[in-house]
């Protein structure tokens, strides 16, 4: 089964070490995610593409305890088989805090400040039988 990314241009894929794709303001150095053309910090109009760091610390988190509405959600929405998933913001040093799914969904195991690393996780199967993947962060063992 082939793997396809949920979208192009948000993370590098395929890759042994996938990274999120962001922007940096040429004028003030502010980082943005996802890619955007204008800077919300200094109103600068010129940005350049950058790859974001793969490791950071968990700034805050929650657990998605019920199936999201589909659309827009592409994952499992069957209440019988739906598995809760973690969601958090990971602070990438010197860059930005990014929102992502977390591979851990147990409130007992999620701690603000813990080390996290970016991974790619399966999300759903598309009409052609491909496995759709998206990005997530996993606790660093």
């Amino acid at each position: 089964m082939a793997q396809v990314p949920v979208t192009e241009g948000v993370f590098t894929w395929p890759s042994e070490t996938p990274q999120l794709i962001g922007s940096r303001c040429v004028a003030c150095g502010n980082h943005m995610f996802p890619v955007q053309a204008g800077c919300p910090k200094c109103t600068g109009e010129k940005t350049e593409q950058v790859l974001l760091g793969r490791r950071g610390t968990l700034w805050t988190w929650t657990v998605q305890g019920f199936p999201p509405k589909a659309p827009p959600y592409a994952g499992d929405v069957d209440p019988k088989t739906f598995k809760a998933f973690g969601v958090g913001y990971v602070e990438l040093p010197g860059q930005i805090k990014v929102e992502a799914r977390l591979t851990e969904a147990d409130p007992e195991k999620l701690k603000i400040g813990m080390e996290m690393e970016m991974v790619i996780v399966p999300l759903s199967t598309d009409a052609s039988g491909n496995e759709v993947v998206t990005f997530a962060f996993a606790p660093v063992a």
Partner: protein
Amino acid sequence: MSTEVAIVGIGMHEFGRTEGVSGMEQGVIAVRRACADAGVKWEDVQFAFGGSAAAGAADTMVSQLGLTGLQFINVANGCATGGSALFSAYNTIRSGVFDLGIAIGFDKHERGAFRVDTRGAGLGNWYGASGLALTTQFFGMKINRYMHEYGISHSTLGKVSEKAFRNGSMNPMAWRRKPISEQEALDSLMLSYPLTQYMFCSPGEGGVALILARADKAHLYTDKPIFLNAAVVRSRRFGSFEVLAPSIALEHNAGPTVDSSKAAFEMAGIGPEDIDLAQLQDTEAGAEVMHMAENGFCEHGEQEFMIQAGETEIGGKFPVNTDGGCLANGEPIGASGLRQVYENVLQLRGQAGARQVPNDPKVAYTHVYGAPGISGVTILSR
């Protein structure tokens, strides 16, 4: 305080679920009730600002109310739709263009958490497809971080829900009118940690209309005019932590609530210590806690003591969400901010019945917050 504009009539259609009545029709009923309250005919109303998020263009309601040719402007500003309608009506009268007008908000949403139109919100499809485009997640993450930083307990979240449903039980217009205990709130289904089912408001239905007049003409319509001393709407600045954000800056900014609150106090020429009661956006129990501090009513972390001691109850030092708030009334987006003003008018008139705040409150405050990082504040006095 500035007393140029008065609220002289209020009308509401019951919040909750009303089968067979469209959101627009609920708005029409609210308008008729507001006109009756002020003793004015629809043809006397010179201008209107109105809006809904999901129940149609407000200006089409004139086909039911009467084609009088009035100036009717639609307002679409997310969770601040009602606040924006009120801001616009307020300034229309202050400018001297008209003497008598109306602000209208109504809505009717499908059941369950809000379905986010990621494209309309300026976000890629991948964001919703990946399971991130839920407003509930933001609220869970904001209060989780806040509890970590400022020592707010799960019990305090439960107590906010308990208060909301108790106040709602005394409000015949509320959706949820059955009291629940703190423990029931804590034990209900965990939707987005640390927030449970009874700690979240639900998208709902309802309508509110407010008739505004030049203050020097208010006596023509009511013997209990309530003056609108400030109406402010603010959007976010760089560095704030907002709903539906794929990323946030490393540097921190306090957010639109803090900005709109400061601007409103400045406009009214008073401070938080002068406010007798407040309706604060309680999309969920944690929001009420955080918004107490963001609006300047306490320091961060003081809420733990205040709520545990009952200070925000109707008979407490600083009553908050006396009509049951969003938690007991649900959130019809277009109407929600005007519901808060409606409640404060009742309280300042002394007409709030079983939930009347004691000792003749004189100054009252409302606050809304919503996507994509906007806030609206009003200050009312009698």
